């Protein structure tokens, strides 16, 4: 949407800039400072929520690149998070690598696993690809939990992740939030910029019409696999973050099919194909989750004691399903589109266009 009044783009650099005016820079700096200090005065419960949210944001950004940009639908994204988390845990514990060294390992490993499950994308697409990613999800869970590999991953047992130690002391919750924030900021900048590279434009061409893209000289196989690799890398990094910041020990149960659907729900609710949308969707879904489990469910449990044991679990499912269904039916283009419309309305207010 248009620039503020009196600002004109006079060079290509200005045209391409993400943050264009000085006011925007100031606002961005203030916003980041606000987020960074948030952990200092929020209750611990909400700090934990923020950290979890950060993990979901990174994973949702990966899914946004894969699904929103390249059009390769995936219902198995949590499985790649699991790969990243287990990579962080195993390399950190068994081989004693420091956390900064396991970060690229987690990302690349998850990306490679993504390549394996992405290869069917050459032959199949759309609907059948969704089926193959569902299969990937269940097979990964099986591999980590029940297969002979489980001796290594601990199977049904949870796997303790080594703490991150800086200057001889373990980092606390606030430190973990700063770590999360740093990873999230880097991921957002990367995702935003991937969209604008030639690879990003190829992704969009493949999404809009893969036959036409192929005719125009886009190497379909390579482009789709690249999308899978990048998307799963993000998921792997999210898994790494999850293992180090959100939980103290990883468990296969944290990366079930439900989590995959949650991630896909975030991308859908936020609006397909926009980075901001993915972040917005993640915030909305996590917020709904948090409010339901921590505030609404205990209240209902108090009023109806016979429901107290089950209300949290079932209400989370119901609220999540309702939010996603609402968006699919009422605003399929997502929150971000609504936000843009609102911005436009505000800017032009007395006039309709």
């Amino acid at each position: 949407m248009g620039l503020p009044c009196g600002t004109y783009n006079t060079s290509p650099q200005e045209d391409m800039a993400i943050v264009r005016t000085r006011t925007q820079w100031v606002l961005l700096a203030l916003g980041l400072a606000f987020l960074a200090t948030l952990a200092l005065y929020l209750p611990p419960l909400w700090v934990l929520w923020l950290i979890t949210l950060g993990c979901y944001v990174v994973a949702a950004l990966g899914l946004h690149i894969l699904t929103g940009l390249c059009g390769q639908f995936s219902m198995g994204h949590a499985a790649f998070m699991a790969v990243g988390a287990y990579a962080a845990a195993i390399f950190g514990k068994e081989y004693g690598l420091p956390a900064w060294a396991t970060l690229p390992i987690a990302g690349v490993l998850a990306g490679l696993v993504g390549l394996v499950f992405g290869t069917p994308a050459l032959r199949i697409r759309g609907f059948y690809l969704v089926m193959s990613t569902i299969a990937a999800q269940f097979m990964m869970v099986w591999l980590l939990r029940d297969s002979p590999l489980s001796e290594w991953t601990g199977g049904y047992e949870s796997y303790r992740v080594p703490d991150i130690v800086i200057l001889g002391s373990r980092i606390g919750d606030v430190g973990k939030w700063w770590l999360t924030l740093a990873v999230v900021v880097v991921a957002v900048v990367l995702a935003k910029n991937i969209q604008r590279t030639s690879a990003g434009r190829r992704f969009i061409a493949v999404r809009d019409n893969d036959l036409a893209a192929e005719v125009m000289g886009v190497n379909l196989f390579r482009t789709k696999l690249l999308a899978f690799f990048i998307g799963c890398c993000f998921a792997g990094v999210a898994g790494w973050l999850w293992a180090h910041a959100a939980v103290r020990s990883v468990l296969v149960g944290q990366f079930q099919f439900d989590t995959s659907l949650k991630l896909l729900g975030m991308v859908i609710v936020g609006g397909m194909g926009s980075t901001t949308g993915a972040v917005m969707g993640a915030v909305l879904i996590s917020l709904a989750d948090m409010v339901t489990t921590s505030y609404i469910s205990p209240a209902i449990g108090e009023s109806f004691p016979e429901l107290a044991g089950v209300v949290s679990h079932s209400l989370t499912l119901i609220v999540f399903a309702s939010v996603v269904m609402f968006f699919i039916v009422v605003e399929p283009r997502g929150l971000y589109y609504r936000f843009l419309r609102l911005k436009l309305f505000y800017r032009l207010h007395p006039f309709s266009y």
Partner: protein
Amino acid sequence: MQGLLVGGLYALIALGFTVIFKSSRVLNLAYGEQIVILSYFLHWLLASHGLPGWLGILIILGCGAGLGYAVERLAIRPLLGQPFLALLMMTMMLGFLFKGLVSLKWGGETYAGPFTPDYTWGESIRVNPAHVYAFGAAIAVFVLLFFLFRYTKIGLAMRVVASDHTVSQSLGIRVRQVYSVSWIISGVFAAVCAILVSMVWSIRPVTGDIALGKGLPVLLLGGMDSIPGALFGGLAIGVIESLATQWGPEYQEMIPWAIMLLILVIRPWGIFGERRIERI
């Protein structure tokens, strides 16, 4: 042998998916949870209200039909013409909604299925009669569907709508009615499944996931839109799975998914499915 019988159950589950997919190209991922909610409802009717069994079955078949119709009318019809992901996600979210409702009403309780037989047949090879009933039901449903699609007017309409719904609408077929009918039929199947599945696996919340986990591989192996395919796929998966179990019990869960991935790479349209040629 045991695998073949279990396969009958899988085939029965897969047939419910096929009916809808064949006419409206929608994969109903809520189907497993539909089965769960119906089986809990059946248990509630019989155990808490003491209704006689035959009346319970009649009511549950009616409820299945009603549930199918309600889902189609309220959730699926507003989305016609949307990209397939919206529909897929919608059915999945419906599944979540049902799961949440079931757990809200009944918690995570496990009940024995209402008509669970407490005897087994055979001396050397023990056979659970419930499996045999399920197998029989699968065959019966298969024959019924075969005749429905081959010889009746509504079956013909379903096939026409599946191949092109714009053309069929201009030929005077009521497309919406056809969709409703196929969802109702599938809802009745969900009720049949609810009765039979609860005999074999008893009534518990995870049945929905299991049904999805077995139904999808069966569906893709046989071909999404093929009724013989669903039957064949069910039996094949059942047999392979029981063979794999001898190799090691932990493989039972994984084998269907592995077969599904394999078939997706080699022959995405399935063994009996119709191959669709993409046109620009």
